């Protein structure tokens, strides 16, 4: 069973992920509302197989969380997909240089998310 950790403060994104991904075979979803909760979840439950990481969150934003995941080696072992409304090239570059595997701009096509999860979630 593959584990996907969705890190986003939006209830809508959680619901979207449940709708689009929640009934995929062999995939369980877990949710965190900010970077701090995500790091605590990983410390307690172990590394997931894929992380969807929003950039703009309170308490600890996605870029800081990504820095910490890189520092502890997690982003070398676990694919991290940054998710953001910001689509500038600089933003994408910052994410990928920080250790992210992919960058998904909102609003994204639902099929694009499914394909990304299927492709990257099987890598771990």
């Amino acid at each position: 069973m593959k584990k996907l950790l969705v890190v986003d403060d939006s209830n809508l994104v959680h619901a979207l992920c449940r709708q689009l991904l929640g009934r995929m075979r062999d995939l369980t979803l877990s949710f965190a509302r900010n970077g701090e909760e995500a790091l605590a979840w990983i410390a307690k439950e172990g590394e997931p197989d894929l992380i969807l990481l929003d950039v703009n969150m309170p308490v600890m934003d996605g870029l800081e969380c990504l820095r910490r995941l890189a520092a502890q080696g997690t982003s070398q072992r676990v694919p991290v997909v940054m998710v953001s409304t910001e689509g500038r090239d600089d933003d994408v570059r910052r994410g990928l240089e920080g250790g992210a595997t992919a960058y998904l701009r909102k609003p994204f096509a639902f099929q694009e998310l499914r394909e990304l999860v299927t492709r990257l979630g099987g890598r771990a």
Partner: protein
Amino acid sequence: MVNDLVDSTSAGESPASSLSEALLLALSDRDYKLRDRAIDEAAHVADPSDLIELVADHDDAGRRNAALEALAQGGARSVPSLIRALRHPDVEVVMFAASTLGRTRDPAVIPHLVRLLDQEDLNVAQAAVDSLARLRATVAVGEIVKLLNRDPWLRFAAVHALGEIGDPHAVQALLPLLCDDSVREMAIDALGKIGSVEALGPLAMLLRESADAGSFASCLRAIGGVLEHHPDPGVLRNIHEWAAISSPEAMGVHQRIMEVLGALERQWSDDLEIRTAAAAIIRALRLEPLYTTLVLAGRDPLLADVLQYCAVSIGPEISPSLQTGLGVRNAEVRVLACQCVGALGLSDCVPHVTALLADPDEKVRAAAVHTLARLDHAAAVPAIVRLLHDPGQVLREAARAALGRMDAAAVSAGLLADPATAGAGKTVALEIMRGNPHPTQAAFLTACLDDTDPTVRRAAVAAAMRQPGDFLGTVEALLYDGDAAVRREAVRALGRSRGERVCRLLLLAIEHDAETRADAIRALGQAGDARTIGRLVAVLSEHPPRQPAEIEALAELHEAASEPLLVRLVADPDPAIRVAAIRSLGACGSTVALRHVFMAVRDSDARVRRVVADAVSRCRDTALLETLIMDSDASVALAARRHLEDLEQAARHDRP
């Protein structure tokens, strides 16, 4: 606090030219604790338009998020700037402003958000929808429904928002979406959250037609949501598609419900909600063939409360299934079944429950004890009395609790027949008798009052005073017992009686027995005879309190007559007495009392001054606290500083 931020802002930053600038700089500090404090401060003092400027700066995501957090926490004071930001040339600032408005909890922003719903930029429109959902904006439901015809991203947001808002007017717009694969599950979810009975029929049909386990689970959960809003099954009986679920033709649904409740492992992240819904359906439709499945689901202790509720709602007709549950291998199920039998008062299950007193599992034995107590099954008393000596504490406590509630005559007979009651079990028996008195205990109690063991005498006093009839004379003798703990118990027992004789005895104790004085003062207060307070004060004036506990007991009487005595004690040479006196006067709270508390701000002992700080903080007197901040004793200064910060924080929250 802002000064602290200026001092601790990361090295290497160019110095701020003002405190306000320093605060804004601190929002990007890498130290999260410092940053959180800066957010909290900025929420209340920073100019919201300055914070908006930080939101517009894309180079520092951390500072931008901190600024957004400060704007959200600022609540109503941030709203004007956020509304202005909805016209910002940078569309991302507009989106962030729309998103943050939802967190201000100010309903005045709703019209501004509604105007954004037809924005071309999907992220802005979605942020507006999300915020309207957070604000539970029922007035916006009509406009949100229109989004169901737009881009899939917005449709999704709209369906989600309609569920969060929970207005039944959205149901008609959501029902057709049950046929749309792309949003069906969201629509099911939303209908469950709205909980309108209109949705029950379509959801029930979908439940029967759902092709896979995932869709079935979603429907279950949504139906569970509707049932929560309509707990009376009678109201739903006329909904044809819903009632059809209880027909033999719906056997497939019954089977799948059994699979959901019977699954050994969690399948979904919302597994508990789904199983709860399954149980609710069995209850609401009275699906008798599934009652045993319901009981067996008790193997998951997280479901226990829900299952018990369902069983109790169903009533005695579930008895056969509970009897089955009492005999299964799984201990959690046996515990649940026991609890349900007790809650329903099912006397026909007594033989099965009694057999569980010999169960290999301690929790089950304890549950059986509790249930037999609830059923007041007197024949079980001897077996329960034996459990008072069980090696396990859980069983011993269960037995004590049970014997405290069961028929007093049977309990007395059981205890007096138990050989241990005459020996090592005497104290336990006396404690039970105290909670469950009966005249047949009198002879035993009288004998225990003369016991050589002071622990036994003490327990006997407590039990004797609960007996009908007059034990006062007997207890009075124990006021002169050689053991202080026994005398204190006798004093406490007197406090439950009233009358001149009781008051006289207590005053004598106060006068002559220093070890029981504090209890005697309290007991006098309990006796509730206001005429004695004057005499009490007179006795204490002649024999001043020497223990802080006595002073605290005096303060607990809340009698104005005791204040002059307490004031005199503020000048006592013993600092422990002065501490107790100041604390008591602070609790009194009268003008005179507080004046004497304030005067003690210059007491020579730091412990006294600390208590003064505590007392003045309750009066919200910041001037005195500012004096104590400069105290030469670090602990006093720190206590005063903390109280002052708390008062300042409270004053900020009280600001309009």
